[in-house]
């Protein structure tokens, strides 16, 4: 059977406000349990929530970034259920009137295909605390530091048709929220978590199949793997004549499988109703417009600018604008090199390679964008060639100094003196008379291939310092005799 996969994603992004969504307690990862709490986060009797205006501002920023309708009146609602790490017995969220309404995102896959993913809504809600099941001798510990931490839940339409699209979409959201500075994007610490709603239907069928929801997947790689695994499971089940049960599942990265958590029958009736402790949030057009005017350049805008201003390819422009830090690095280096193509190639090539290899984030790279730019300038002005530059870059990464210091110290300056190159070539020709004769006797087509041998000899003799751009024409001329 030829299946079409239908995916909708719910992404929880933790906002980078200083204090919690409804209390003045600090937000932070890794503090001693229950030290970052107030009466409100502990759900003490008589404690009342006070809405954090900074979270509102961040949500509106996001709404603008995805071209969404902004909820001019948004309403907090209570989602009621009992759980020990949910201190009030309800989560304050938004239901019928979210702060961000319908919007969309355009994503581009590696093969260049683009698609538009609809975003149903994004709403503000508070996080729950954490239950700690280890270290308490059969009891459960409760840590309420995370309680009432602000989340923006971004809900997509079921517009995603593959694992690759899903990952591209999540990466795009990741890049937007980090560009806006409203989320630190740290998936390992849970700052961004993803619920995957997935169903299959025979290709061509209008009606959706029964879906399952995979909860709390927290890396790009796991999202991709969880989707592949779940597609396979659903397809196998359907092809064996079984049916899909609507349920919540968990992805286990170690076994690379999803397993049932709870079925719809066990699902809570959350009894949503407007929270009477909080007034509806009324926005003025002025406020909404003011936030729009302070929005930073977004990844898609940056990518477009990179193409028009620097004549970069769409792919290069997308890669370079995928994170704000990478784009900033590129642009800082470019301001020194004034050569977009060279800078783009080096950022995406050598720099990315070392970052990956050493598992370093670009903002922590040991070579600054300025120092990196200086290195590329030395390629441009023929002080060193590209091959030498890679060695210099590695030395810079290892902390041996600036490009110029390393070139100087190691004597890597390119030989650009025509006379010196000519005499070097003459020496090679004299030592290889047989090859010279063969060359001269050969057809022009063959000569082109044979010249490589001489170039190699020259580079070897010069210890890589001869400027290849100069060596080639001089060599060709001298070989003619």
């Amino acid at each position, binding site marked *: 059977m030829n299946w079409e996969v239908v995916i909708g994603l719910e992404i929880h992004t933790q906002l980078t406000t200083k204090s919690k969504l409804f209390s003045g307690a600090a937000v932070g990862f890794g503090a001693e349990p229950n030290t970052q709490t107030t009466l409100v986060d502990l759900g*003490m009797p008589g404690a*009342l929530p006070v809405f954090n205006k900074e979270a509102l501002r961040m949500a509106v920023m996001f709404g603008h970034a995805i071209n969404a309708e902004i909820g001019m009146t948004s309403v907090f609602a209570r989602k009621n259920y009992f759980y*020990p790490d949910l201190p009030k*017995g*309800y989560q304050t969220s938004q239901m019928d009137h979210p702060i961000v309404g319908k919007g969309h995102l355009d994503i581009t896959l590696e093969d260049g295909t683009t698609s538009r993913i609809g975003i149903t809504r994004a709403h503000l809600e508070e996080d729950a605390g954490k239950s700690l099941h280890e270290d308490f001798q059969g009891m459960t510990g409760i840590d309420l530091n995370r309680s009432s931490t602000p989340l923006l839940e971004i809900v997509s339409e079921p517009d995603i048709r593959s694992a690759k699209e899903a990952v591209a979409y999540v990466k795009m959201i990741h890049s937007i929220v980090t560009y806006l500075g409203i989320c630190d994007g740290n998936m390992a610490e849970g700052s961004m978590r993803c619920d995957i709603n997935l169903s299959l239907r025979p290709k061509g069928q209008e009606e959706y199949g029964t879906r399952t929801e995979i909860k709390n997947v927290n890396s790009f790689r796991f999202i991709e793997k969880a989707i592949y695994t779940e597609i396979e499971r659903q397809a196998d089940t359907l092809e064996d004549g079984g049916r899909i049960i609507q349920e919540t599942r968990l992805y286990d990265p170690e076994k690379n499988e999803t397993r049932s958590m709870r079925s719809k029958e066990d699902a809570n009736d959350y*009894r949503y109703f407007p929270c009477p*402790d*909080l*007034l509806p949030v009324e926005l003025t057009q002025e406020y909404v417009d003011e936030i729009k005017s302070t929005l930073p350049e977004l990844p898609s805008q940056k990518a477009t600018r990179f193409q028009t201003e620097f004549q970069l390819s769409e792919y290069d422009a997308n890669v370079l604008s995928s994170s704000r830090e990478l784009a900033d690095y590129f642009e800082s280096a470019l301001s020194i090199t004034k050569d977009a193509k060279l800078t783009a190639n080096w950022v995406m090539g050598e720099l990315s390679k070392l970052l990956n290899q050493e598992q370093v984030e670009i903002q922590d790279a040991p070579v600054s964008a300025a120092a990196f730019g200086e290195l590329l300038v030395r390629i441009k002005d023929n002080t060193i060639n590209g091959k030498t530059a890679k060695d210099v870059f590695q030395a810079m990464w290892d902390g041996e100094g600036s490009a110029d210091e390393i070139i100087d110290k190691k004597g890597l300056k390119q030989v650009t003196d025509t006379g010196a190159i000519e005499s070097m070539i003459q020496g090679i020709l004299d030592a290889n008379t047989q090859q010279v004769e063969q060359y001269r006797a050969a057809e022009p087509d063959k000569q082109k291939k044979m010249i490589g041998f001489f170039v190699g000899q020259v580079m070897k003799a010069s210890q890589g310092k001869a400027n290849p751009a100069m060596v080639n024409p001089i060599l060709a001329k001298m070989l003619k005799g």
Partner: protein
Amino acid sequence: MFEQNISSLAKQLRDKDISSVELTQYFLKRIADLDPQLNSYITVSEQQALQQAAAADALIQSGQGSSLAGIPIAHKDLFCTQGTLTTCGSKMLNNFIPPYESTVTSRIQQAGAVMLGKTNMDEFAMGSSNENSFYGAVKNPWNTDTVPGGSSGGSAAAIAAGLAIAATGTDTGGSIRQPASFCGITGLKPTYGRVSRFGMIAYASSLDQGGPMAKSAEDCAHLLQAMAGFDEKDSTSSETATEDYIGNLNAPLTGLKIGLPKEYFGDGLDPKIADTIMAAVKEFEALGATVKEVSLPNLKLSIPSYYVIAPSEASSNLSRFDGVRFGHRCDDPKDLLDMYMRTRAEGFGEEVQKRIMVGTYALSEGYYDAYYLKAQKIRRLIKDDFTSALSEVDVIMGPVAPTTAFNIGSKTNDPVAMYLEDIYTLSVNLAGIPAMSVPAGFVDGMPVGLQIMGNYFAEAKLLNIAHQYQQNTDWHLQSPSMAEGV
């Protein structure tokens, strides 16, 4: 001394005719002597009261402190008081000593008042008779076979019996006004948002409002002056400026337009109460007011609307009492579900459990539109009724309750009859307007309260009207014989 008002006591304190410590000792003795008959206090905080009194004396000595400085008052036991047991009338909070202070009690403390203790109440403020308390029923000092009303029954009984000069109460559907009426004292439910709810244990958040209870409107004004005002810790508290409640008491009533809603005088109202209310209205006419009939056509719908909205909110508000972090927890729970179920079954009384179930049902999937949403629509209609009536008149008057205080136990098996007790008070909470109960006479020896309802933030006006009435009548000065019998 117990029958004196705040102004007079404040003067004596300032003139050193008496100290706050002496005054406090006097009330503590009255509580020890009389409260065993009434059960109006859950906690008497004797030591703390004497310390506060000593501090108040020092404050007065230095020429500081408001009119409340050194005055012994009581707090309904749903205001969280730092370091003092706060039970909300429930077994669930039998061991709950808050590490924080409610805004209301904190402000009253700042004003220099002395807290004698915490008064009894219907559990979680759910009730109209004060019979739903884990700490036992409260008795009406006018006749100890009868109820004091509820849910602020402890505060009302304590004031009527002279066991406190004034007290705080809260009113979600009549819980200040109805006990004030039953016990022959004065009580004010302010506009929703006038008084901060921070630290007030929530029953129904969109309806709950704290307010003053005392013998007279003047004393209520003193207390409200300290309680009222915006609080950044309560998002629903209003930024509308407070008024000079005491300074406005003496404005003349000439030209006052009083509306009498015909629906308040229909079937179910004891005719003797109707006569008492009409006699009071005559008194206002004599003071220069004019009277006209108005209509509040959706009055009857206030009961079903209230009994959907309030339990719905309560079912959610009371979820935090789960045995995890504070309050009662059952012994030896088998597992999490067992802990939840037994903790809540043991900790909550029957009426509270009933309302949690009603509210849970009303909010359930498939019922929400038919119950909760519909109730909210009715609420809007009721609000519009008041807005419309109050565009024709300055205030609306009527009875507080259809009967005087009834016998303990007489309605406990008839919940509908009990809920009907609230018919004249509920709609005020649904609309969010302020209203008072003012002593207006007696029927068969039991007090009757006149209800005065006003427009949003018209507290100063209501207190002024009540005060002028009390300058010309002495119903509020009557004391039950048990109060005299010490």
